[in-house]
């Protein structure tokens, strides 16, 4: 320090000695020291860090008329210790931040404003000595590195320096960013799946994104895949959390992958792979309901499996506990991922072993890959086809012959009225004779109605002519005409009725074929794996299809086994169920009609002896769903 500066400090400016020391970098004895002063004591900050800051807008003088506005993060510090000056002497407390003596305005921190973008304020720290053990500093600007080192001085005495750290992010921000990162990575495979040219169809539902969780052999949601994905996502999240904490919050180097993560992935992957190996060697579980559901996670072929329940619960608990332990770590101070307690890892290992052991101990369950019903059309459709085969035009010959004979037996028409009646009848006969097609038949009734009306008019006209005859001679000549015309009109009415009767008789044949169709023998063929033959329960629409209605090639009430499982001869790969409706009791026949009479969609279920099920949907007649979707 120069002599001039020292002189300024002591004599002219009367600045505290310690400030002068800092400015000059050299210790000197204060000129005005009259009595010994105890150094204030500053204790450690509690807590030593924060990520909570306020915004402040400070006006800085620039070259132009308009002041420059700087935006700063500020914090409020609470200094605790002893030996602080209070009251009127509080301005004797000297505040050093990062080795700089700070000009502070002593007073209260309450109600202090730190400006807005529109109305900035001067950069100023406010201080309040609450007691001789506590000083509040407001508006302390956070430096870029976040570290605030504080000392308190009194006269030439200085306290120890205490450090306070302001981090850029806290748990919430880091958790959110890590979650977004993990989610984005988890969504990547889903995005890639969306590029599949066609989706996987089960029954009538399309599966594309959910393929990740499906076991293609049974079309059920896979528990081993779920636990593997959950642990993978948990690992991604935790490493993202750790990475952000170290690199962004703590300004540290890229952290190495913590030792915890490979272990987690290894356990999860090991369980998943072991599960696949067991499935291949022992056979799959039962396929269960037609479409996959969440119940698949705790059931095997529709039967609740305790080993799967405990596996699911331990997985959820383990993943949840691990994630909670991760987010409990403060990003600013985090230096490692939390280690999973040994006993928890041990329990999880036992859980996986229990799950895999359950798979080993359980019998393989039924899976239906292909299903067909022959004939594939419902009885109603077959009946319609049968009725079409019996399609026939009505036989009008008897009616025509009868009318023609009666017409020939009538006397010849003399008058115009009678001739009109005879003409109408002749035309009706011609129309009836010429019926060849349905269209002709439909037109016949209109023709007959018109001709009947014409003949009726002629008969009425002839009767009026007779009634109006001027004399007996005329009356006599018109008498036969009136009688003949009446008879012809009646004959035409009879012809019309006979034709209607012939039509109704002919229609009865195809109607009988439709309403009382012969029932077709149904052959159901199942292709799949582990299809029980002797202990199975078969159902359609959850109504039992009992063995008593089956008839195999040996004439027994049992299924035909076309291909057996190599490893388990009592199980079939291809099975045939044959139902002959002619042999059924009335009650069974009602059930048979319910299943096969009308078009519709049905559910077939096979339940093996151990209760494991497989379901498949089928349609009569087969629709798109059956052709491509029900392959399970």
């Amino acid at each position, binding site marked *: 320090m120069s002599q001039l500066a020292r002189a300024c400090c002591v004599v002219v400016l009367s600045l505290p000695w310690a400030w002068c020391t800092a400015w000059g970098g050299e210790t000197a004895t204060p000129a005005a020291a009259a009595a010994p002063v105890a150094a204030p004591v500053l204790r450690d900050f509690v807590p030593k860090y924060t990520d909570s800051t306020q915004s402040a807008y400070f006006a800085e003088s620039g070259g132009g008329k308009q002041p420059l506005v700087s935006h700063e993060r500020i914090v409020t510090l609470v200094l605790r210790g002893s030996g602080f000056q209070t009251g009127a002497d509080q301005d004797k407390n000297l505040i050093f931040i990062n080795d700089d003596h700070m000009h502070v305005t002593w007073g209260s921190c309450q109600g202090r404003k730190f400006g807005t973008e529109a109305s900035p304020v001067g950069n100023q720290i406010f201080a309040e000595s609450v007691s001789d053990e506590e000083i509040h500093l407001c508006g302390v600007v956070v430096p870029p590195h976040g570290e605030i080192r504080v000392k308190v001085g009194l006269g030439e005495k200085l306290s120890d320096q205490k450090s306070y750290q302001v981090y850029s992010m806290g748990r919430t921000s880091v958790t959110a960013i890590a979650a977004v990162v993990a989610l984005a990575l988890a969504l990547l495979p889903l995005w890639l799946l969306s590029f599949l040219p066609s989706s996987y169809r089960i029954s009538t539902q399309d599966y594309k994104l959910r393929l990740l969780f499906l076991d293609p052999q049974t079309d059920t949601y896979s528990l081993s895949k779920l636990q593997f994905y959950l642990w993978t996502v948990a690992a991604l999240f935790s490493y993202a959390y750790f990475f952000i904490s170290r690199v962004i919050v703590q300004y540290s180097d890229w952290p190495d992958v913590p030792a915890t993560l490979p272990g987690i992935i290894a356990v999860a992957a090991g369980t998943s792979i072991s599960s696949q190996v067991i499935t291949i060697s022992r056979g799959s579980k039962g396929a269960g309901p037609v479409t996959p559901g969440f119940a698949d996670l705790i059931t095997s072929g529709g039967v609740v499996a305790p080993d799967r329940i405990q596996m699911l619960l331990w997985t959820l608990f383990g993943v949840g506990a691990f994630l909670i332990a991760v987010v409990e770590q403060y990003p600013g101070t985090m230096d490692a991922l939390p280690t999973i307690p040994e006993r928890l890892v041990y329990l999880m290992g036992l859980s996986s072993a229990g799950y895999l052991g359950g798979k080993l101990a359980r019998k393989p369950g039924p899976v239906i890959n292909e299903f067909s019903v022959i004939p594939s059309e419902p009885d*109603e459709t077959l009946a*319609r086809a049968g*009725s*079409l*085969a*019996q*399609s*026939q*035009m*009505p036989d009008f010959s008897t009616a025509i012959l009868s009318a023609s004979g009666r017409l020939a037996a009538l006397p010849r028409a003399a008058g115009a009225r009678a001739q009109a009646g005879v003409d109408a009848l002749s035309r009706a006969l011609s129309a009836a004779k010429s019926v060849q097609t*349905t269209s002709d*038949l*439909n037109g016949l*009734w209109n023709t*007959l*109605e018109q001709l*009947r009306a014409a003949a*009726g008019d002629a*008969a*009425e006209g*002839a*009767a*009026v002519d*007779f*009634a109006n005859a001027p004399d007996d001679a005329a009356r*006599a000549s018109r*008498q036969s005409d*009136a*009688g*003949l*015309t*009446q*008879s012809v*009109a*009646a004959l035409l*009415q*009879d012809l*019309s*009725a*006979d*034709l*209607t*009767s*012939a*039509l*109704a*008789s*002919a*229609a*009865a*044949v*195809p*109607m*009988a*074929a*439709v*309403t*009382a169709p*012969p029932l077709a023998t149904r052959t159901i063929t199942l292709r799949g794996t582990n299809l029980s033959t002797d202990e199975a329960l078969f159902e359609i629409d959850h109504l039992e299809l009992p063995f008593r209605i089956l008839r195999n090639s040996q004439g027994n009430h049992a299924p035909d086994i076309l291909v057996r499982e190599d490893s388990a001869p009592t199980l079939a790969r291809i099975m045939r169920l044959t139902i002959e409706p002619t042999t059924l009791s009335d009650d069974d026949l009602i059930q048979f009609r319910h299943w096969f009479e009308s078009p519709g969609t049905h559910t077939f279920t096979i339940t093996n002896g151990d209760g494991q099920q497989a379901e498949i949907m089928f349609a009569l007649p087969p629709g798109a769903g059956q052709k491509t979707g029900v392959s399970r």
Partner: protein
Amino acid sequence: MNELQLATARAIVNVFETGRVQGNYSGIAVAKGDSGHLSYGRSQASLGSGALYDLLSDYCQCPGARYATALTPYLPRFQQKDVTLDTNMLVRQILKDAANLDPLMRATQDRFFDRRYLSPALMAAEALGITDPLSQTVIYDSTVQGGWARLRGRLAAPVTGKTRDWVRQYVDVRRAWLMSLAAPLPSTVYRMDTFKSLMVADKWDLDLPLIAHGVTLTEESLAADVPVSNAKPRALILTSPYLRGADVEAAQRSLVAKGLPATMDGVYGPFTDGLVKRWQTSQAIPENGVGPLTRASLGL
């Protein structure tokens, strides 16, 4: 339905089946197929379904059945559904004669077909809450022609108070269904067209007269053309189709006896009606058609 409405319902279905108000009790047809073969009677009881045996068995058990002795030997063959009966002309002739000449056969057919078709139809209507006579006739017609059970399931149950809407919808569905079936069933949609016309004409109570498939139904036309001995004689009026029967022929015979030149064709047509009017004018009888006064004056 009251008795007149029941008779009207039967007559409507008779017209659909045979073109005649009274039906064709002697009608015989032979149809192909196991459920068909020989069929007989007003609503065609068939050999294949076993209904023909049931009908003839009922008839043969009636005291006084004139053709029971002739038919009884054939009953076992009817029971066994012996298809050779399809071409047995002697059996056919016995059946025709029984229907034409023995009122007991017609009465037996009425009972049999009512039991087989009308009663189940009325029960089905009641179960659905359908009370309109016309609506009940629609169901009756479906049970006679066939397919009621199949089509009824295609519609939801009728809502109380809106049964007429349900029946209208049913008629439309049935018409479309008939159109989709094999020939000649599409040509029988006149049945549904008739019902639709009656609905438009607000004939829900089957009030007479009404027209079904070109046939005018009146109280007179519903009366039997060959009345039983103790029945009240029917009035003879001009209607379409013309009334026929022995009572008409008797009236014509009386007219001839009174010097009026009636044609003895048993048809109450315009000419016969004109002669009746001429007679009524000469006798100052104020009556339309042959009623009690005219009948008395003609000595009938």
